[in-house]
């Protein structure tokens, strides 16, 4: 089933981390397997935030050997960054297996990402000027608590609560998906894409790379390629409705935008609340009411409806 939610403020940064946590916790019943956040902070000049993991949460059950491997993999990452001339301005390790690095780098970001992922067990969750992508097993309160997102200030974000249906319960299969290796693009999706392999092979033939077998990742890569070609986010969303088969509602974020698209059947839910200063969307109104407890006017977007909001 899965639950998705999005939030954007039009008048500056707020406690996006805390509010997204509340929204996603209200959607826990739609998917208790994992929870993910893609939230956008206030970017520093020529800095990047890189979030990556060097193991899965479930690997920790394998005893001391995996802990030694984690330490070795982190050391290999640090060595590679040093070798490539990346300046690490700050680093945090919210969990044993996941890290957040604030870096300065003027080289080829795709080359950096490719080389990092050659290190065993290493997967980059996101790279961006503003994007920070966090996902892990457990509900929103668990993940937000472990990664200290409760006070995260930012302008917009999307999130996902996952009920695993077609792939494993692990971080790799959790949403949101970052559009590897494009900066600041993330997607959450509720639905099934039925021409996934056809579309994926087309994108792979043009040089794109996928880190998972989850159909939702296709939407992120598809959008990133369209934006790179010069298309607007709204045009890409509009096009996706006709090029992508299946039933879906998805939310996509860039550095300063939040977009939404619904398929031709309107088969997957979405409730929308728009105010002068903010927009909130979720699979269920109960998620919006988690941050706006008073009575509000909400609507259901219709089939083939596409919307884009600016931060």
């Amino acid at each position, binding site marked *: 089933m899965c639950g998705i939610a999005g939030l954007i403020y039009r008048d500056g940064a707020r406690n996006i981390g805390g509010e997204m946590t509340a929204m996603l916790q209200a959607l826990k019943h739609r998917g208790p397997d994992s929870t993910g956040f893609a939230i956008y902070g206030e970017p520093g000049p020529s800095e990047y935030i890189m979030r990556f993991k060097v193991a899965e949460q479930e690997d920790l059950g394998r005893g001391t050997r995996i802990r030694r491997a984690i330490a070795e993999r982190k050391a290999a990452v640090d060595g590679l960054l040093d070798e490539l001339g990346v300046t690490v301005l700050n680093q945090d390790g919210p969990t044993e297996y996941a890290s957040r690095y604030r870096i300065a780098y003027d080289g080829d970001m795709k080359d950096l990402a490719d080389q990092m992922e050659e290190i065993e067990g290493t997967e980059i969750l996101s790279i961006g000027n503003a994007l920070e992508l966090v996902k892990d097993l457990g509900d929103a309160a668990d993940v937000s608590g472990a990664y200290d997102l409760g006070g995260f200030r930012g302008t917009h974000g999307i999130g996902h609560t996952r009920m695993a249906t077609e792939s494993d319960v692990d971080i790799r299969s959790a949403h949101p998906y970052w559009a590897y290796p494009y900066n600041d693009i993330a997607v959450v999706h509720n639905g099934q894409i039925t021409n996934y392999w056809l579309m994926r092979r087309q994108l792979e033939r043009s040089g794109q790379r996928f880190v998972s077998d989850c159909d939702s990742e296709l939407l992120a890569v598809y959008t990133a390629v369209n934006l790179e070609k010069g298309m607007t986010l709204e045009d890409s969303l509009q096009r996706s409705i006709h090029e992508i088969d299946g039933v879906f509602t998805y939310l996509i974020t860039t550095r300063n935008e939040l977009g939404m698209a619904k398929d031709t059947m*309107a088969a997957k839910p979405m409730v929308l609340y728009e105010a002068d200063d903010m927009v909130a969307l979720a699979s269920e109104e109960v998620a919006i*009411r988690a941050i706006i407890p008073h*009575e509000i*006017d909400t*609507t259901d977007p219709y*089939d083939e409806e596409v919307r884009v909001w600016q931060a």
Partner: protein
Amino acid sequence: MAGVSDSVSAQMGMHTEPLTGRDIKTKFTLRNEGGFAYHFARDVDFNRRAEIDCADLEPSEINRKIRELMDSGHGSIVLRNPGAKHSLIVGILNRMNFIVEGSLGYFGCGLLDGPNVRISGRVGWSFGENMMAGVCVIEKNAGSTFGAALRGGDLVCKGSVGSRTGIDQKGGTIIVGGDTGAFSGFMMQRGRIVVCGNAGKNLGDSMYDGTIYVGGEIQDLGVDAVPAELTDLDRAWLARKLTMYELLPEKGVDHFTKIVAGKQLWSYDNLEPTERKLVL
């Protein structure tokens, strides 16, 4: 009692085939008024009113409190701070009054038979599913599959509703003050849908019977849904119903478009299994 085929609704084109088999009329007849209530229905007093503050309660706790109040004879219950919670006021088989001060989430007011419900906010997906009798009036918008498999009663949304309104509708009346989304009236079998605003694509797709009235524009009709002549009887019924719920347009009801089943799909459905095998 007059047969169904002689009834006013049959004259209006609501249904053209005789009802046969076991249906609601075998249990509830006009001659046997006591048959309108279930034998287990609570004896409630509509003048006894109680309130439930839903703010810190789970849906199951709220529904349990409703039943406790009904057991103690309360006939009017007010829900405060419902907070768009799911599955509230479900399976109520009693004459009751409910007033909801706020919004409901998914599957609100499902499986009702008898209550009168007023909701000041909006409702989520699948509101009023399988309702058999009663009246529900929603002041704001509603989500998709509004009134799915509705069997009787009046379901009224004064705002706009999502997609697949009245899917698999088997009776009763759905009234929408605003617009409705795609596939409204999909596989409708009986009853009426009234949309004062616009209707999305594939309106009445694969409908077997029943009638849809649309006051605004229809994006397109679904398979086997066809326009029909709006009769004086239709106009009178529309005007009466819309007046009752304060939704009558200033310009009246003459502009409504009436949609019914073309019944071209029936030739296939009427085949015996052996004949169907031959076709396949």
